[in-house]
């Protein structure tokens, strides 16, 4: 089994209001088959046995779909492998002797809760503003009553694949959530079910995005580069068109 030794610089912060700092750790004999989070587990077991406080980090499914995990590794949200969440990043992509600088997803709209954990509830509030079709349970028409071209369904699915991890926000120099918001607006404006509320949705979601403290898009494309699900910035262009149309047409 191949192993590597690592130097870690990890952001430690007690809570939202206390200032944080980097702390250094050395880990030896890390199997290259481990996932990044399993490497953090090993560190935490070691710290616990030494009577020190383990590093707090968010994680859940460890299959790259729940969107819970995430940290900035050597300056890149979710680390160096493209199209990969932190839990699916494996240690074979690092070399012995590497120094890994691990920080939380920083952004004005994502206050740090502790160490690598941040509060991403602003993303939930963007969805609450209009990221849905207003339909109650029951009384819906037969699933096949409205045909949807396969290509349209696929395009909507490309946008709907967003896992809401917030890497797009963390990587954006402006702290924008436009890839996240654009993906949901796109999914629903492409489908017939989303048409009745199309304009109100675009206005409400974009307005909420602004009021939650997210920035604007200046076409840096950093979000697209780190998105673990390969969401395209064409969704941002579509959102902008939707917003402009809605603003002019009311």
């Amino acid at each position, binding site marked *: 089994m191949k192993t590597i030794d690592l130097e870690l610089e990890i952001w430690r912060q007690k809570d939202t209001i206390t200032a944080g700092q980097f702390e250094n750790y050395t880990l030896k004999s890390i199997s290259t088959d481990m996932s990044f989070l399993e490497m953090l*587990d090993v560190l935490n077991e070691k710290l616990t046995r030494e009577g020190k406080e383990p590093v707090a980090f968010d994680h859940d499914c460890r*299959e790259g779909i729940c969107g819970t995990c995430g940290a900035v590794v050597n300056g890149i949200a979710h680390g160096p492998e493209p199209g990969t969440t932190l839990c699916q990043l494996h240690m074979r992509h690092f070399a012995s002797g590497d120094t890994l600088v691990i920080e939380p997803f920083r952004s004005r709209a994502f206050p740090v809760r502790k160490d690598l954990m941040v509060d991403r509830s602003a993303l*939930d509030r963007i969805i609450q503003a209009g990221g*849905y079709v207003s339909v109650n349970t029951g009384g819906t028409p037969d*699933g096949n009553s409205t045909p949807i071209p*396969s290509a349209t369904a696929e395009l*909507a699915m490309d946008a709907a694949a967003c896992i809401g991890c917030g890497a797009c926000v963390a990587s954006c120099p402006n702290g924008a959530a436009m890839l996240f918001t654009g993906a949901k607006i796109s999914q629903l404006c492409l489908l017939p079910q989303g048409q009745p509320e199309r304009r109100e949705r675009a206005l409400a979601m974009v307005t909420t995005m602004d009021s939650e403290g997210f920035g604007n898009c200046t076409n840096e494309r950093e979000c697209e580069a780190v998105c673990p699900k390969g969401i395209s910035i064409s969704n941002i262009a579509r959102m902008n068109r939707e917003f402009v149309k809605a603003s002019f047409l009311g």
Partner: protein
Amino acid sequence: MELNSRVPTGPLAEKWDNHCFASKLVNPANRRKFKIIVVGTGLAGASASATLAEQGYQVTSICIQDSPRRAHSIAAQGGINAAKNYQNDGDSIHRLFYDTIKGGDFRSREANVYRLAQVSNNIIDQCVAQGVPFAREYGGTLANRSFGGAQVSRTFYARGQTGQQLLLGAYSALSRQIKSGKITMLPRKEMMELVLIDGRARGIISRDIISGKLETLTADAVILATGGYGNAYFLSTNAMASNVTAAWRAHKLGAGFANPCYVQIHPTCIPVHGDYQSKLTLMSESLRNDGRVWVPKTPGDKRRPASIPEAERDYYLENKYPSFGNLVPRDVASRNAKEQCDAGKGVGSTSLAVYLDFAEAIRRDGEANILKKYGNLFQMYEKITDSNPLHEPMMIYPAVHYTMGGLWVDYNLMTTIPGLFAIGECNFSDHGANRLGASALMQGLADGYFIIANSIAGYLGSSDLKSVNTDHPQFLESQKKVHDRILKLLRSSEGGPEGKFTVDEIHKELGLLLWDHCGMARNKEGLEKALAALPAIQEKFWKKVYIPGSGNELNQSLERAGRVADFLEFAEILIHDALAREESCGCHLREESQTEEHEAKRDDANYSYVSVWEHQGEGKQPQLHKEPLTFTEVTPSQRSYK
């Protein structure tokens, strides 16, 4: 403990309609007077919260994750079944009902399963209306695919992310109600205790994960949608936070726990590869459509797979089950993989794996076609194992995946505690001893969107509930109980970590014990051994676990410790149940009860019942109750896949 299943009278196909008509209702103007707590925001919890809020109830929804969108339903891959018969291949409500009850090896309640099949079609309509981007044919109609245990094409899907898309649909409905103020959404809260007043569920105590503060919530009814208990085994395909705590707290207050020994072990998972491993990853069942399962014929053959000639390979599923081949049901495939590895024919560095080989399919259909079908799965496999299934066979091994057992519920999905309901994987109701692929999503949404609202109205409309507030002595007492328990958990940590164990170390020990003796094959001797070994692990936990930090802050070690403490207690009824069921059925193989060909042998004369365990107090043996299963529409038969 009284087990009244409250199955309505009348012909099977009319029971649900009759029941809806006979049930008490709550007038729309009165609904806002009732408070309902929903614990969990997976498919069942999110859909229930949204539906109840739409109807006018005051709903408080709590979840352990930082957002309700992250519940573990999100990880379901394959699809969702419904009896639409869009493919015109002979499907019907009755066929879906029959396949499900047969797949469960005739250990589920007929009336519940029939209702599940009935509402399955409404689920698809509901999800389409929400904007769930299901796969479509070129003509624009909904696409279907096939899954195990069925001969029709009835599975609706959204790529390999069906669970994600359905959950985001339910989450969108939930979000709409949060915005309208009808749902109070409380993320990052863990339910620590259920509160009973006059024998009814009237609230919960929860812990705020960020601040560590204990909080009390009152209600007129409580719904648990807290998922399964697969993480008792430490390694499973479940998310890291999935746990039995809410269900176990309810059990200790009087909720019967049904069929805990029914644990589904899924055959196609990425094998264990190191003692640091934190979880196992599922590879979709659909891979068995084109992959061929094999091991070397000679035990201990450690050559690379490509160096093993055809004549020296044993395609054991194809040889043993010529008519179903590699597509036998999950329980059969899992047991056979274990049998091969036990015989020394396992492959890989740990010898606990078998090959799933796509070479022939690639030769036949070409790389491009295989990648079109399985590209995302191949990519995920390669990310984890660093091996490309196009060039080398996959290595797979069974892993704990889903739990059919859960809180006992009646036809209304109410537990043995009045006012406490359990929905989704958290209850035992529909899958018997083995769940079919693409049926978990169906059940979660059936319970949440279409069944629970009717039950809640029936309960509230027929109960005389006094108003309660958080000053009630019972709330204070329950809160103190939770507070004392947290102090008790932290007690062994005084004096530092010297000579102590971490939470994970003890959890791994429990997991290994359960996996070895209460896993894919069970026998009396092993189960008794496991039962005897359990108290020492429990004692080690309470005396020697080391948890850094305190209870009044964000403390992830403490959170895990609380869950492991409950798994340690729960393991007892899990083993008791496996021991008491001296037959084999579905996932539960008792080595003493096999056919001559080593297949699971049911004993309908003696075991055609639901086992329901009642807590008798600390340190006392749990008591077994039985709900007899009677079949009027189907005739139980021995399953054969030869």
